[in-house]
């Protein structure tokens, strides 16, 4: 997800006035942000990763090498992309905690401040990452009933499933335990409900049968946004809000933090969906999801029947999707420009939410993140 951003160059372009070119490249955004919050966030889940249970799992997962179980990819991604990919949510939670400043109330023992962030808020950032990772893992389960002989031995897949369920559950249990230690029932309720949202969002991603997944869902862009909110925004939005609650900030600040988290994640998802369509010439066309924003918008403008016709034409006789052809069809329509507009719209909403926070390094870093996810060539 986030890794795609690093592969891009950092040139800005025109567009909506507030989101003109400018702002440093992504890697710089991240490293400056990490300095602001006090330490590299890639260490955050280290304690958990080094636990006996996960070491045990890691050893067992080695048995999956050579099989086709998705857990292997998830694990690889975790190890090799930790520099680029992960812990972004945690970083945002830390930044917004710092940007909001100290509490106006008397806080209890839990709340000593380091680098302008309360220890409870740091714990929350870690919890957010734990939950996100748990679901990356739980997404990688295979349906035993749908396996074919080319997928390899059944027992490998069963074993992979077992490891995936266990390690995901372990991460979730750790998140729950840490949540309980925060001694704040509102935060527990908020984050637990975010987990429920995430499950529903992932459920929508999954609910298609193999035949159906060759088509765009029969949904409007507003339904698409609701589903994407659940799968990609709710966790971060509610975590940002919870961070404010931990410092006993006002309801307005809590809402602004929520709005930032929500709109920035939406922008990020749109940005990610747009990548196959905005890259300059490339020899290979990236495959893209037929439920990505440009495709859904294109369908909305064109009408579903006409869109299905275009998909069939791109499938040709062999039933193999010609993504280049399909991509050109989408580019020829209004899907791409609408998606860019939508991305920038959410970006502006995120920036507007930031206005409620006093100017600071942390706030600037949060703004830079928005610029980075709304930048197109």
């Amino acid at each position, binding site marked *: 997800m986030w890794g795609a951003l690093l592969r891009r160059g950092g040139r800005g372009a025109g567009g909506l006035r507030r989101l003109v070119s400018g702002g440093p490249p992504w890697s710089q955004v991240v490293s400056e942000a990490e300095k602001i919050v006090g330490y590299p966030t890639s260490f955050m889940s280290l304690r958990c990763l080094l636990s006996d249970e996960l070491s045990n799992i890691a050893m067992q997962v080695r048995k999956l090498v050579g099989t086709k179980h998705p857990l292997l990819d998830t694990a690889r991604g975790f190890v090799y992309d930790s520099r680029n990919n992960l812990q972004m949510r945690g970083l945002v939670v830390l930044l917004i905690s710092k940007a909001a400043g100290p509490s106006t109330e008397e806080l209890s023992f839990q709340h000593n401040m380091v680098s302008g962030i309360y220890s409870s808020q740091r714990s929350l950032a870690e919890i957010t990452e734990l939950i996100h990772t748990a679901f990356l893992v739980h997404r990688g*389960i295979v*349906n035993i*009933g749908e396996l074919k002989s080319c997928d390899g031995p059944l027992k490998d897949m069963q074993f992979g499933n077992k490891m995936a369920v266990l390690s995901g559950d372990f991460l979730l*249990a750790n998140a729950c335990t840490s949540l309980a*230690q925060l001694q704040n*029932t*509102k935060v527990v309720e908020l984050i*637990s409900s975010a987990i429920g949202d995430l499950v529903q969002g992932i459920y929508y991603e999954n609910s298609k049968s193999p035949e159906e997944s060759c088509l765009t869902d029969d949904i409007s862009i507003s339904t698409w946004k609701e589903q994407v909110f659940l799968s990609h925004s709710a966790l971060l939005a509610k975590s940002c809000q919870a961070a404010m609650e931990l410092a006993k900030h006002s309801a307005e600040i809590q809402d602004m933090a929520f709005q930032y988290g929500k709109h920035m994640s939406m922008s990020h998802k749109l940005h990610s969906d747009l990548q196959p369509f905005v890259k300059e010439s490339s020899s290979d066309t990236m495959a893209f999801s037929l439920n990505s924003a440009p495709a859904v918008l294109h369908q909305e403008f064109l009408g579903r029947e006409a869109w299905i016709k275009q998909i069939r034409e791109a499938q040709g006789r062999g039933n193999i999707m010609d993504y280049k052809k399909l991509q050109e069809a989408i580019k020829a329509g209004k899907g791409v420009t609408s998606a860019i507009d939508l991305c920038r719209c959410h970006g502006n909403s995120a920036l507007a939410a930031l206005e409620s926070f006093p100017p600071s390094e942390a706030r600037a870093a949060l703004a830079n993140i928005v610029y980075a996810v709304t930048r197109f060539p």
Partner: protein
Amino acid sequence: MCHFTQRSSTLSFPKICNIFWRFQHTSTSHLCSCSKTVSNEKYQDPFQLGRKDLKNLYEDIKKELLVSTAELKEMCDYYFDGKGKAFRPMIVVLMARACNIHHNNSREVQASQRSVAIIAEMIHTASLVHDDVIDDANSRRGKMTVNQIWGERKAVLAGDFILSAASVALARIGNTTIISVLTQVIEDLVRGEFLQLGSKENENERFAHYLEKTFKKTASLIANSCKAVSILGCPDPKVHEIAYQYGKNVGIAFQLIDDVLDFTSCADRLGKPTAADLKLGLATGPVLFACRQFPEMNAMIMRRFSKPGDVERARKYVLQSDGVQQTTYLAQRYCHEATREISKLRPSPEREALIQLTEMVLLRDK
């Protein structure tokens, strides 16, 4: 491990191993000499006593499962059809009343205590859904499992959703101590599963490992939900300890009998296939006891019954040995301990019902 040694109990680890090795010398009369508190309360069927409070339990659970997608809702509701034993909520509700009566003679169950019963059942069910994926099980409670019908991907999500809904309900009670007590259960359930992954080479260690796993996977939920309702009903920490010990001992006994039934019952009665544990490579109480008489079983245990014919051979050894009897004796001892603890509370129909329940645990056949 610490759950055993932290709490003071006559059944600490060294004692258990003693019992393990000296079963031949335990006379049955010793078991009957426990001092059952004489009370004037009439004998009542525990399930009748708790019925009013549990009447709408499953409906209320379904209300907590607020899900917009029809299919996901169907999956989450699947086990809350009212056909389960409702054993755990029953204990929780009876314990709540027993503690309330002990404290101030109130027989009413508080709303928060009832919530604990609901939450406990939800956490339990969520773990069952995941266990069935892990074990690749295809039937439970006499019907197909969630993963069998809807696939493993969705089953895992359904389990996660039920757990998140339980957490929301837990937060809404508004008591951070209760949140900590019940969150411990979630952690114990997962660690119990991990314990099951590993195995011990040493015979002595194996039994301790088995009991620890049994505590974490089964007894912790009952122990901690009993403790939670006692905290809500009564401020006395001694009462919390009594409730916890009752729950812990009954929970372990329950699982021990479950492990016995896996050998002695037939599939129809049980609602799930038998010798299931052996097929999963698990060496439970009857097997561990049998191994003392048939050391040939050691090799099978170490390779987790993976060779063809192992399961059948192990089963035969168990049925030839006194493994079933020994495990049942051990369960009786735990029930005895549960009774001893709960008898410290003020007499009440609910207290008697909880004692009655320990006997029902021993006599169940499914």
